[in-house]
């Protein structure tokens, strides 16, 4: 193992993950986080994975995808079908892996033709693909059609969920701070210049898209094994917009803000649970207002970093 992995900032991140894990576990055991709050907590974690993975595609690579729900749908159904046959941790893992493979293949098929398109055309094409995925799921036997799957064993546990969040954050952050990540950023900034600098732009767009799809399918698997029931109407265009709202609220390109936005919206959803119409109106208005007054999102592209924090203390 390279010694750089054991630097102070990585240890600080590891430490904070352990603290969050222990504190939440204790609070759950003590009943302070009751089953009602627990649903919110679990939802927030799933949404963090979705928001971070979509942010990779939109915020880092600059490719505007409106089809994220489609990949979540694939992950959810793969996990749901396998765990119904094998209701244990092994089954979950197999379902998860099958979901990875299928969503990666579908993402490849979707991305190679559509990623040639620019901006808003791409958005509509990905939306179309996600809807096709949903319609296919709705018409298959193994997925039990429009009725969906019920009685999925509840295998999503707190450690598993937190592991999912940590893994997706590590994957996306490590990717961003590397040569392939820089290639993606340069595509976002100026595609023609990027290609002139020797970057195979299609290749890196596809890579970002596939990583995003795999992480979304992980979120889908955790989702399916948490809520017992899944059906195609849970994975419509509206779900993609929900994820988009989190990415846009926080700030495109910043993972810190996606995490915060997912948490804030999770809490907001809980508070406004009985006013679902008003909630949607607020979301709509918020999208408009943010785009007009602060299009970079509430936090912009700023990232929280232990490295900067530690360096600042050293300077003092």
């Amino acid at each position: 193992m390279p010694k750089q992995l054991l630097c102070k900032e990585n240890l600080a991140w590891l430490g904070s993950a352990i603290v969050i894990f222990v504190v939440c576990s204790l609070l759950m055991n003590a009943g302070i986080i009751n089953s009602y709050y627990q649903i919110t907590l679990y939802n927030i974690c799933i949404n963090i994975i979705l928001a971070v993975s979509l942010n990779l595609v939109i915020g880092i690579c600059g490719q505007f995808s409106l089809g994220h729900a489609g990949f979540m749908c694939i992950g959810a159904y793969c996990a749901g079908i396998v765990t119904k046959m094998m209701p244990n941790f092994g089954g979950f893992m197999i379902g998860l892996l099958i979901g990875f493979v299928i969503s990666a293949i579908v993402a490849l098929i979707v991305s190679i033709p559509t990623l040639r398109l620019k901006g808003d055309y791409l958005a509509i094409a990905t939306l179309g693909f996600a809807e096709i995925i949903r319609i296919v799921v709705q018409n298959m036997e193994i997925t039990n059609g429009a009725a969906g799957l019920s009685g999925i064993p509840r295998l999503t546990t707190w450690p598993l969920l937190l592991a999912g969040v940590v893994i997706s954050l590590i994957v996306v952050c490590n990717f961003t701070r590397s040569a392939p990540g820089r290639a993606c950023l340069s595509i976002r900034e100026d595609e023609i210049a990027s290609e002139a600098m020797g970057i195979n732009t299609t290749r890196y767009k596809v890579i970002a898209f596939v990583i995003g799809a795999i992480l979304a399918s992980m979120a889908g698997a955790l989702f399916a094994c948490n809520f017992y029931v899944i059906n195609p109407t849970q994975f419509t265009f509206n779900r993609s917009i929900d994820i988009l709202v989190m990415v846009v609220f926080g700030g495109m390109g910043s993972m810190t803000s996606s995490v915060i936005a997912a948490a804030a919206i999770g809490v907001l959803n809980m508070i406004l649970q009985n006013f679902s119409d008003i909630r949607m109106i607020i979301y709509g208005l918020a999208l408009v207002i943010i785009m007009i007054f602060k299009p970079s999102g509430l936090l912009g592209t700023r990232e929280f970093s232990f490295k900067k924090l530690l360096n600042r203390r050293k300077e003092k």
Partner: protein
Amino acid sequence: MSQFLQQMINGLSLGSIYALIALGYTMVYGIIKLINFAHGDIYMLGAYVAFITTTYFGFSFFPAMIASMVVCGILGVIIERIAYKPLRHATRIAALITAIGVSYVLEYTTQYVMGSEVKTYPTLLSSATFTLGPVTVSMQQIYIFAITIFLMIALQLIIKKTKMGRAMRAVSVDEDAAKLMGINVDTTISFTFLLGSSLAGVAGILVGIYYNSIDPLMGMVPGLKAFIAAVFGGIGSVPGAMIGGLFIGIAETMVVAYGSSLYRDAIVYLILILILIIKPDGLLGKNQREKV
């Protein structure tokens, strides 16, 4: 064969409605390069305005249609002024996100005010049918054809022959140059929204009659299909939107008649993806490329 002809007739009437909505998309995209996601919801509101005026105020068909046109037209202008105007020079993605936001506001405000349940549309036109050889045409379909054809001719005349139409074409080619030639760009864009939105209002009442029921989320899917129709025909092109609308309507009807109704939406998305891959500029669209 007679079944095929019958399906053609049905497809054409559905397609006419799509074409009316598609015109709004294509005009707005042509002039400010925005996919006006909220356009489908304008059409939903058109259906609701006609529903309210006929049910509560006893309007007959044509006054109700005019009312929808006026309300939708004004609403379109207000939306443009409040939500889109500040973003005219922002990225297209920012504008698209705003449009999605506006769409949410319209849908869920309607749902909040009118309730989420499906409402049955009053009978506004006689349900008489005519048999012409092997096919049956209903009075409703005749109205749909007649109104659509009339509006499209009127629209073509406005765009080609009037001063405002010339201004619209000028702004869509080059906003800055148009401004320098003394064209009031803001007014021209507002006028474009007025035209597009009032056509959507007409589409709203026609679809209410055609399907006999309306609900607050009815705008999303037909809105998307109409957008696809606009892309198919070549976005920015008015005749393209008409051809695209009719094509999508016929394709959808044929899939339902000869395939499975379960795939009626999938076929439309498939058409979209195929056209984007094969000819992204659409049938009648112009090729545009970035200057390096």
